[in-house]
Structure formats: C-alpha cells, structure tokens
C-alpha cells in the first residue's frame, strides 16, 4: 500500500485524526453529499434498496467485528437478527413500550443471547465454532417458528409504524434519514473501536490467540465481549428491520441470511470497517439490479425472467467463490489498489 508522502504530524490531534490528507477529506465530503442528495433523486424502488443497504451496513459492521476482527466465525447472524426483530416487535405490540426503548432492550437482549451462544468459543475455534453457531441458528429459528405463545409461531407479527419526535415514520424517505443516521454512527463508532485497547485486543486474538494471552489479554473475556458487541449491532439491525418493514416473520432469519451477511464481509473485506460498508452495498445492490434487469427483459427474454431465482442463486454462489479465489481481501483491497495506481502513476510501484 502506498501512502501520500510529505504528511507530517506535528501535534497529537493530527496524529489521532482519522483522516489526514486533503484527498481523504474531499472523498469524505463527496460521500456525505451523495448520501444527503440520494433520497431526493432515487426512484422509490432504489430508495427501498438504499434503506436495505443502510440496515445491512449496521449488521455487516457487527458481524465483521466478530468474524473479521476477532477471527470467530458465526453462522448464526440470521437468527440474531431475528432475536432483535422479535424482541422489539413483541415489546411494542404487546407491552406498548415506546419504540426507542424497545429497540434499546432488543439490542441488549440480542447481545445477551449472542454472548450465550458465544460461550462455546471459550473452548472451540475455527470449524467447531462454525458448527456451534450453526446449531444456534437452527435452535433459535426453531424457537421463532414453534414457540407460538411468544413469537406467534408461523404467523407474522404486524408492527405499527413508529413515531419519532412526533414525526410519523411511514415513508421510505423518512426512514432513510433514521437508518443512515444510525448507520453513520455505527460506522464511526466501529472505526474508533479499533483504535482503542479493546479493539486492538480483538485483533491480537485474531492474529495469534496464544500470543495474545501471553501479552496479558484475557482471551475468554474478550471473545465474549466481541460476541456481545457484534450481536448488539446485529440486533440493532434486526430491530430496525422489524419497525421499517412493519412485519416480522421467521422466513427473514434463515441460514441463508447468515450466509448472506458472511458473504457481505468477505466481498467487502474481512477485518475492515469500510469493507463492511462496501460489501453490504454490493450484496444488496447486486440482487436488486438482477431483479431490475429481469423485469426489463421480461418481454424479450422470458426464459431469463422466469429462471431468475435460480440465476440469483448461481450468481450469489459465484460471487462468493470468485472473490475468495481472486480477491480474498475484498473490495476494500480493490479500492486500495485503485488508489495506489493513481498515486504512483506513471510508475507501477
């Protein structure tokens, strides 16, 4: 990775800053403007997609903290999203809890359940942990479907649209600001997390757990903390989905969703906050774009439109396989290379 030359930090503030060069500030400003302008120019379809991206970003950043930064694989993200969604929905519909409070409780609840299912990580890692979280996925999904007394079983829970400061959150346009405001806070928080001792401990455990223990990191405690923080963010994404979609059904929280989130962080870049954002965007836009494409060619190529679910599956699988084979560090790395190319031009290195 090439870095800009001639950058000297002359104060502690400059040394601590997240962005140091002018190019970085300009890019951030451009991104900011794009996010502000987007809801005014996007069509209703793409505005919905944008909101899904925002929610996916929160979940993907959460999962990346666990899998990318701490090195603990989880196949239970789908179920943890469900825990957040169900908790928040049930609190609002049955106990008339204000939405904001319900979301906070849902986040805490998911963190607790996530930590519980993270307990096997104290003894296991790698593939065995994947199995344990896979079991968590199935057990929780079973609870959503069969614990009718609490979750309503196979029936959907209908959640009323919430109000925020007397402003009814009903349209995609209104939700856009809530979702992206939250996503921005989450990204900013996660970016800073890895500049603290806590985040660095996560990295140490990922890189070499025994060495981390030797350096005085309480590996077990930090693994559970990672599960808690990660599940909390995933729960937040789940709770937001519940209120945004105003409907909660078990079908949204299957193993496929867990895999989708893992695909997001792999495509984006394991262990990179920006990568989670790229991955969440890519993996949400891709199926939407394919769907849009199918709609456009419905008359000219009806076969293609009819076989779309199968094609979606193949494309999804191919994206995962090709990224792992050819860009295992994800879009984050691609972006890095693009920047390097221009910075070093006309030289190769």
């Amino acid at each position, binding site marked *: 990775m090439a870095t800009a030359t001639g950058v000297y930090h002359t104060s502690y503030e400059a040394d601590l800053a997240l962005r140091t060069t002018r190019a970085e500030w300009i890019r951030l400003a451009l991104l900011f403007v794009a996010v502000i302008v987007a809801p005014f120019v996007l069509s209703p379809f793409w505005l919905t997609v944008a909101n899904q991206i925002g929610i996916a970003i929160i979940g993907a950043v959460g999962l990346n903290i666990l*899998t990318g930064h701490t*090195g603990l*694989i989880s196949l239970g993200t789908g179920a943890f999203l469900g825990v957040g969604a169900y908790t928040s929905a049930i609190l609002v519909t049955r106990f008339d809890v204000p939405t904001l409070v319900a979301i906070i409780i849902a986040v805490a609840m998911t963190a607790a359940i996530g930590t519980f299912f993270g*307990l*096997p990580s*104290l*003894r*296991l*890692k*790698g*593939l*065995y942990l*994947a*199995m*344990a979280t*896979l*079991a*968590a996925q*199935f*057990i929780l999904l*079973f609870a959503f*479907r*069969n614990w009718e007394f609490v979750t309503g079983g196979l029936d959907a829970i209908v959640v009323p649209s919430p109000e925020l400061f007397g402003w009814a959150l009903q349209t995609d346009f209104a939700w856009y600001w809530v979702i992206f405001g939250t996503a921005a806070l989450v990204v900013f928080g996660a970016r800073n997390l890895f500049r603290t001792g806590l985040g660095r401990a996560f990295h140490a455990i990922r890189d070499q*757990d*025994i060495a981390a*223990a030797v350096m005085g990191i309480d*590996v*077990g405690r930090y693994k559970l903390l990672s599960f808690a923080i990660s599940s909390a963010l995933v729960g937040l994404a789940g709770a937001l989905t519940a209120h945004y979609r105003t409907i909660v059904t078990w079908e949204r929280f299957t*193993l496929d969703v867990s*895999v989708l989130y*893992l*695909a997001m962080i*792999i495509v984006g870049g*394991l262990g990179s906050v920006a990568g989670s954002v790229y991955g969440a965007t890519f993996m949400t836009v891709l199926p939407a774009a394919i769907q849009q494409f199918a709609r456009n060619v419905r008359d000219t190529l009806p076969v293609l439109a009819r*076989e779309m*679910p*199968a*094609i*979606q*599956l*193949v*494309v*999804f*699988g*191919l*994206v*995962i*396989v090709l990224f*792992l*084979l050819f860009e*295992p560090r994800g879009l984050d790395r691609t972006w890095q290379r693009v920047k390097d190319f221009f910075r070093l031009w006309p030289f190769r290195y």
Partner: protein
Amino acid sequence: METFIQLTVTGLANGAILALAALGFVIIFKATGVINFAQGYFLLVGAYVVWAGIVDFGMHWSLAILVALVVAVLVALTTERFVLRPLVGENVISVIMVTIGLAFILQGIVQFIWGTEPRSMPAFIPRGTVAVLGVPLSLNRIWAMLLAGAILAALTLFFQRSRHGIAMRAVADDQQAAMVVGISVRRVFALAWALAAVSAVFAGIIVANLFGVSGEVAVFGLLVFPVVILGGLDSVPGAMIAGAIIGLLITFTAGYVGGGLQQVIPYVVLVLILLFRPYGLFGEVRIERV
C-alpha cells in the same frame, strides 16, 4: 411395540442414509482437511441426474446411476482442482465460505435445469410392505438400510485393504510423511473428492427413493453436521454409529414427542457434544484450546 419396531426401522434407515452422506464428508475432511458444506448438494445432483436419466432419457436404472456417478465425480474433481486447491493453507473461514458458495451454485444449476417442482423417483427399488413378526414394515426402508450397509462395508474394505485406501489413510495421518514415501498427495485429494461424490450419489438416490426428488434432498446434507461431530470428524466407524444414533433420535422424537421437535433435536445434541466432548465419540483428540 409395533410402533417401536416401525420407528426403529425408520430410524435405522434414515441413519444409514445419514451415515452414507456423512461418510463422504468425513472422507474429504480426513484426507484434505476441508469442511464441505456442499455435501448435501452432491446428494441433490446425484438424485436429479438419476431421475433425468431414467425419466427423460429412458435409460435403464443401472445405466442412469452410472451416468450420475460420472457426473458427480466430474463435478467433484473440478471443484477440488479449481476451487479448493488454490485455497490450500487459507484460513477456515475462507474454506467454509467457498464450499457454501459452491452449494449455492449447485443448487442454482439444479433449479435452473429441473425447476423446483418435486418429482417421484421411478420405483427401481422395490416398494410396498413386508410383515416381519407381524409388524408391517415398508420394504424400501429395509432396502435403503441394506444398500447403505453394503456401500459402507465396501468403502470400509477399500480403506482397510486396497493400496489407494491405505495411501489415503497415510495422507490423512501425516501429509509430509506420506509424500516422503512416494504417495502423490494431489492424487489422494482428488480420490477423496471422487469417493465422497460416489457415496453422495448413492445417498441421494436412496433419499430420493424414500422422500421424492426435490430440493429437500439437500436438507439431509445439513443433518450431516450433527452426525459427524457426534461420531468424530475424522472417524469412519464414528460416522456410521453416529448416523444410526441421530437417525433413531429423530424418529423416536417425531414418534413419541412430536411438535416438530425432531427438527431441532440433532442440533441440541450437536451443542452438547461440542460443550462436553468436542472430538466426538471416536474422533482423534486434538482440539486446540486457548
């Protein structure tokens, strides 16, 4: 008593299929250290190709099985060469995810060619019931048990007696030592995938014969995980015994408890095993602890 015997037979039949599917998984893990999440979809491919061979192309069932074996082995070898080999030495997350990606590709291709409508397998395995000690038992389940047993026995014999089987065990034990004595590790990897595909095709045919040809066949692939963890990831006899245990557990729960609990009970067992005996009943004890 009648229910008990019927449930036992059903459970053992399911267990035999699970053992067969799990065996493919164990062979791959033992030889190459890869956790194959796509195992269930190899069952699916096998079942559909046999179905298409018999129904669409009017082949004799034995020829259709042969074609399915060839197709599955080719898919497995391609996968091993072009997908898994570049990832040798990568971290567990990448390997798991690549096989999951593969599962989606296989599922999509099958769905693209044959659609999602369930079909029934032509009856080349005898159906109907037979009375044993006055208890009516369905014939195809007994056949499933016998077939699976025969294939498991053949594969065990292969591992114990044949040159290639012994080479595979050597590689599983220590790759470098195996190389030193002149075993081609690459060829053993390819052989492992091919064998796994063979056992998956047979498992797929038996599943399809019992439950019809549909996407549901692959569900058996996910039940493989409780089986292999219970039996020990690298143990062939473990896979067989654990297959029987999980199969019986599922049918007994379905028969005596009900309420859909049978769907989740294997995973509860999985968690318990992971907590108390992560290397399973017969697996080699080499869990890393931190």
